């Protein structure tokens, strides 16, 4: 039964006009990203560093651009995840799309799980495609590759799947528009916690760093993003490594298997909460 819902949701995701719009905007982004790479690597050769500064300019630029691409992939993936899930329960119930499906003998849990699997699959494939496409562009134009390529993409895809799950949970309580706004605010809070960590790190403030650390664990999609960022920068040493840890959109201060396991548990808890809440909701 879950398979039927997954197939339905996948077809819905791919046949809605919003998917075509996302696809076109993504191609536009990749084209602009390629143009930016061309100019950055053309001009970076002309940059003269002081004699006492030892940094590989090309690898610094490459990893910086990869970090930028990673943030863009996360952001676009989150936009897609939110659009695919923001109205799955309350929104679809208001429009009368949900009732004909729920009265069938498939079960509400199956419906929710099926919708999540489809949204996560579409978003994960999309994020991987954008991230790997951007990495390929940087590699081909700048002849520089991040320390790790595939696993940071997978980690990023997991972060977006987690946002999709939070959005599904929100859709049980909030109407489509309200849920979309709420999820973007939660996503924004994650980004702010990342920037807060960077500020705390730069100022050497233990309190700010600690607050950012807690926020990243409370919103594990941000922790996964930082984990992915860390994977592409961990082989960059020296000044380049230090500067990369400062940005471009927050540094990487948490990561590793503890974060990944916590995120998996968090996803399970969000899923269980959603199933329980949906089972009790009047339609």
């Amino acid at each position: 039964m879950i398979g039927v819902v997954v197939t339905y949701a996948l077809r819905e995701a791919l046949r809605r006009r919003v998917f075509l719009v996302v696809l076109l905007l993504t191609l536009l982004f990749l084209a602009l990203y390629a143009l930016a790479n061309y100019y950055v690597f053309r001009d970076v050769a002309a940059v003269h560093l002081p004699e006492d500064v030892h940094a590989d300019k090309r690898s610094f630029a490459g990893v910086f651009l990869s970090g930028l691409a990673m943030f863009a992939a996360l952001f676009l993936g989150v936009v897609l995840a939110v659009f695919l899930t923001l109205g799955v329960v309350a929104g679809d119930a208001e429009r009368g799309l949900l009732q004909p499906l729920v009265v069938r003998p498939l079960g509400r849990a199956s419906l929710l799980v099926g919708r999540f699997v489809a949204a996560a699959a579409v978003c994960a494939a999309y994020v991987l495609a954008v991230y790997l496409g951007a990495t390929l562009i940087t590699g081909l134009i700048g002849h520089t590759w991040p320390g790790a390529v595939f696993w940071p993409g997978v980690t990023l895809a997991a972060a977006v799947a987690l946002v999709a799950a939070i959005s599904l949970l929100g859709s049980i309580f909030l109407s489509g528009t309200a849920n979309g706004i709420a999820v973007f605010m939660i996503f924004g809070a994650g980004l702010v916690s990342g920037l807060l960590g960077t500020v705390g790190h730069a100022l050497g403030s233990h309190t700010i760093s600690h607050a950012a650390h807690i926020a990243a664990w409370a919103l594990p999609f941000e922790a996964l993003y930082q984990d992915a960022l860390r994977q592409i920068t961990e082989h960059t040493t020296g000044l380049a490594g230090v500067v990369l840890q400062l940005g471009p959109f927050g540094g990487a201060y948490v990561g590793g298997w503890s974060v990944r396991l916590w995120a998996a548990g968090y996803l399970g808890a969000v899923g269980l909460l959603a199933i329980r809440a949906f089972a009790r909701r009047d339609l």
Partner: protein
Amino acid sequence: MAALSVRSLGKRYGRVEALGGVDLEVGDGQLVGLLGPNGAGKSTLVKIACGLVRPTSGEARVCGAPAGSTSARAALGYLAELFRFPGWATADEVLRLHQRLARSRGGAAERTRLLELVALADARDRRVEAMSKGMQQRLGIAQALVGEPRLLLLDEPTSALDPVGRRTVRILLEELRGRGVSVLLNSHLLSEVELVCDHVAILLGGKVVAAGSPEQLAHARGVEIETDEGVRVFEAAGRDETPRLVAELVRAGRRVYGVRLLSSTLEEVYLEAVQGETS
């Protein structure tokens, strides 16, 4: 075993009581009409029966299984008052999806039969977004019939239909009754309910205020006799007095052209039951 059995059913939304102890039964092959003003609790009752809403008290059973359970949902077909199908899907795709969800093995033959039944055979590959409201309503009825349900719950099934569409649905309902399918019809169209339903329940403020067959609900209002002097109404008279009244008129030298037994219409019964309530 009744197709739908409702006992002391209650539902509260916060402080608002939508249903206050409703008893209702839809027997096998029976067509029951649910009437009442807006907010009387009709849709809530239907939603509880198909598992969309949980009751606060009492119970509802579909073919012996608790409403909302998997076996109860497997036995029913439902058309919501406000429903929509995804605009990107064709009529055939909508029915195929519901066949899979209802575990129907009818295949393409069932889809063809259902689309013909609701006069949508020519629109099989048309997207829902390109259909008129009436066509979508008919597709909704076809969807409710997927998997040959034992109980059909129809919430305002003819609200978006033109007179021809309404007639098609009326004929369809009579055909379903002939096949032993039980139907709970929630409608504002009294004439429609009067024409097709075996049993009628009128709800007001979440309670059943009148119930019975249309004939039981209608009470005698006298006899109307047309003579050469015009039409005369004998208000106190019933069917048994009619031959005597005609004989007396003939003996008095009157020419009798027609006799009609007067009884209240369902509309009059309804208005009397709801005491002018509209919502």
